[in-house]
């Protein structure tokens, strides 16, 4: 049997993904804009409370996580305003 260490646990978690129930990529795309705005404004309910399976999907899907990080950065930059 292989000894379990914190480093190894982290590596395994990354390989096998989140244990929580998660959204699909399509659902993630559908809810991403509202989720990001709730993250930015910090209003209740929180983004994770309103979309409970989103965080697990972002942990497991690097492409959706990239998309999330990009939209969050773009919104925070203030460049979504037209003109």
């Amino acid at each position, binding site marked *: *049997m*292989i*000894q*379990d*260490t914190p*480093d*190894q*646990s982290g*590596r*395994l*978690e*990354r*390989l*096998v*993904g989140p*244990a*929580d*129930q*998660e959204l*699909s*990529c*399509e*659902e993630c*795309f*559908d*809810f*991403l*804009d*509202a989720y*990001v*705005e709730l993250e930015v404004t910090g209003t209740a309910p929180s983004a994770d409370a*309103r*979309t409970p*399976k989103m965080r697990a999907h972002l942990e*497991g*899907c*690097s*492409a959706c996580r*990239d*998309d999330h990080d*990009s*939209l969050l*950065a*773009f*919104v925070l*930059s203030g*460049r*979504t*305003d*037209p*003109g």
Partner: protein
Amino acid sequence: MTLATDVDVWREDPTGAAASTEPLALPASAGFAWGVTRRSSRAIGDAVTGDPGAPSDDWVYRLSHAGPDRDAAIAALHALLLRAARFEVNRRGAVFPNLHGADLDDLACQSADDAMMSILRRLADFRGESRFTTWACKFALVEAGAKVRRHAWRGREIPLTAESLSADADNAPLPDAHAEAQMLLIAVREEVKQHLTARQRAVFVAVALNDVPIDVVADRLNTTRGAVYKTLHDARRKLRVALNARGLGIEGERA
């Protein structure tokens, strides 16, 4: 799943006229060159004021009713989408040194055009749960991100077999960690071979073990990103059970 209150985006017509029920007609400009004409340039300031009070209603209404205001709104939206796409390709381009300025700008323009097509086709999907501009920019950012990843991986071999599992071990910084990583990879490799289907193996090895972008794998396997992730999810669930049975401390799936 209950998310947010559904919002009827086809709100009251501010002009008092009935909302058009005709299918959206895309502009006839060749190659989707969303050029701003002299007329629409003047109209942009009127069409899209950025009024924080009701900008989403304004965008949806103008984009869904034929006329000069729609042309102006399309031009203004395309400018916004191009800004978002350039933001994304510049972010992602820094990670891929083989991409150059002209390539990146071309990808940004293509992304803005494709995003515009998707937005006009899916206007009825906008539920008003975010600002319209955030919803719309999402399309451009996702398009641009996927295009950069595909472009960067064009012509590169994608590892799809369980034999290509050495990257993690090579990155381990200390001898002890290196040994642990090697043992772990041996265990993972054995379980991958024993429990996963051929397609699950290919997806798991490429995406989870070698960090190949999921949309690149989807292209190579001639399927969708969502389908690839579903395959990855199923593979991970099998491995979670198998590795847990080896005493590796993997938690079971939580409801």
